[in-house]
């Protein structure tokens, strides 16, 4: 296993194109445990953190750009970013301990393609786009098109995510992310729920609901979104949101939770996240 | 004579007797006497038991501990710790 620390995107693409077993990494917070547990080692480890473009967060002309290897602690510490995307910020802040937060990144969290990745439901709820670089140049795709299944992405061998783009939310729009873990910290989500709402005088005018850890990939819940739009988030609406979220799940039984548990709690978290997002949007 | 108290698992070898009078100046002598009276009981008392004399737990594996003429001797399941 050889380590390489390219300083440009082209250099990194070149390393990937030259060796099919090369692998990019940012925090390695998943990669190192995977290698320790016996996954085959990549031939070349391509460290993306020395490429300037991959580290940083900023807003310009109504679009936020987040480098794919930016430590999530940078995002949670950025007051302007957190003000614009409170749910996305809190989801980013839930990826592991403070130690992990200084290593983990959206790029890694997304491309590791774990169904339980905390940032991904919030990325989807905010319609975040990924800018992907490869031998054929760059392309921009919605994040939900990156992950195709557990551990599987649509990226070619010579491609990696360079940065993320997300539009500044319209007025009275806010997001929220909740997850269920057995402890208070240091766990992988058993269920995650991201909700983004636009409110107009107490009535919801736009809604996105995305669930994590309840299916092979992040699940959008159109029935919950439909129930929210036009509502004032009264109890009946919230129960409808919960029912729709539970119905949208396609979970598995594993060491972290049962099918029944994930279904039930997905509904609980969806309705709670919707309530928080509405409060934020109304504020 | 000391009064010896046995556990229910000891009683499998003693026809159900759980309390009996035994002559013996030491734990070892008491065990030897019991082993003679009840076939199969010896190994359980020697290797699989702790002993309390008049309520005080004795060092593990003790056979020389003195047993007074009116002592209460309890053979217990083995006690360990963590």
């Amino acid at each position: 296993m050889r380590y390489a620390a390219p300083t440009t995107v082209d250099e990194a693409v070149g390393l990937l194109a030259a060796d099919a077993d090369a692998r990019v990494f940012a925090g390695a917070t998943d990669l190192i445990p995977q290698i320790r547990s016996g996954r085959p080692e990549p031939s070349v480890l391509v460290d993306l953190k020395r490429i300037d473009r991959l580290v940083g967060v900023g807003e310009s002309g109504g679009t936020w750009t987040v480098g794919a290897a930016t430590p999530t602690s940078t995002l949670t510490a950025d007051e302007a970013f957190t003000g614009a995307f409170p749910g996305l910020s809190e989801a980013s802040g839930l990826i592991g301990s403070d130690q992990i937060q200084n290593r983990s990144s959206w790029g890694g969290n997304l491309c590791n393609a774990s169904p339980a990745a905390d940032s991904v439901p919030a990325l989807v709820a905010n319609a975040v786009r990924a800018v992907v670089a490869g031998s054929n140049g760059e392309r921009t795709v919605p994040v939900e098109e990156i992950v195709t299944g557990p551990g599987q992405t649509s990226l070619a061998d010579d491609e990696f995510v360079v940065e993320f783009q997300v539009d500044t939310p319209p007025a009275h729009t806010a997001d929220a992310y909740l997850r269920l873990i057995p402890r208070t910290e240091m766990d992988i989500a058993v269920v995650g729920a991201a909700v983004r709402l636009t409110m107009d005088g107490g009535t919801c005018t736009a809604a996105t609901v995305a669930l994590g850890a309840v299916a092979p990939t992040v699940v959008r819940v159109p029935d919950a979104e439909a129930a929210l739009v036009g509502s004032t988030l009264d109890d009946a609406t919230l129960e409808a949101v919960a029912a729709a979220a539970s119905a949208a799940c396609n979970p598995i039984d594993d060491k972290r939770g049962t099918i029944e548990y994930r279904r039930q709690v997905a509904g609980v978290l969806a309705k709670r996240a919707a309530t928080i997002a509405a409060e934020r949007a109304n504020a | 004579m000391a009064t010896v108290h046995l556990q229910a698992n000891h009683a499998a070898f003693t026809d159900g007797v759980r309390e009996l009078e035994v002559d013996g100046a030491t734990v070892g002598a008491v065990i030897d006497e019991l082993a003679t009276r009840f076939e199969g009981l010896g190994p359980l008392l020697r290797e699989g038991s702790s002993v309390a004399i008049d309520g005080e737990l004795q060092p593990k594996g003790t056979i020389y501990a003195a047993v007074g003429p009116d002592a209460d001797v309890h053979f217990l399941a083995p006690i360990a710790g963590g």
Partner: protein
Amino acid sequence: MINRTHVHCTVNGDEVDFLATDSTSLLDALRTELGLTGVKEGCGTGDCGACSITVDGALNCACLMFAPEAEGREIGTVEGIAQGDHLHPLQETFLEGAALQCGICTPGFLVAAKVLLDENPTPTETEIRYALAGNLCRCTGYDKIIHAVQEAAVQLNGAKS
């Protein structure tokens, strides 16, 4: 030796050079190449914090870094917390408050707590508990560790005013 990379970095304020294979973790390199055995391995997967170090001032698990990633970085370990024979207030309050039993997790807790107090001089109990949630202790139930961090914060703030 195959693929030994030369790494130049700063450790506890001293410039150091070492050689490590590319797949070596920074934890192993610190322990075996530099003899900094105060950095402990409890899990090797970033879940216990016993190997907590600072990298350019930020808290990290040394087990989750490849040694070559340290190139040009400033690394801080438990061995660098005391200034000469002068203990850091956290080290003092851990000792005075019996905030350690077996001591295997102590170096990681001290590094993490120092980062916390450097960034947030007046943390609440809840903030301390979440800031230290990446460090497992199995002996103390955390109670005396939290108290020791609170006491160190008081001492540090008293020293400043």
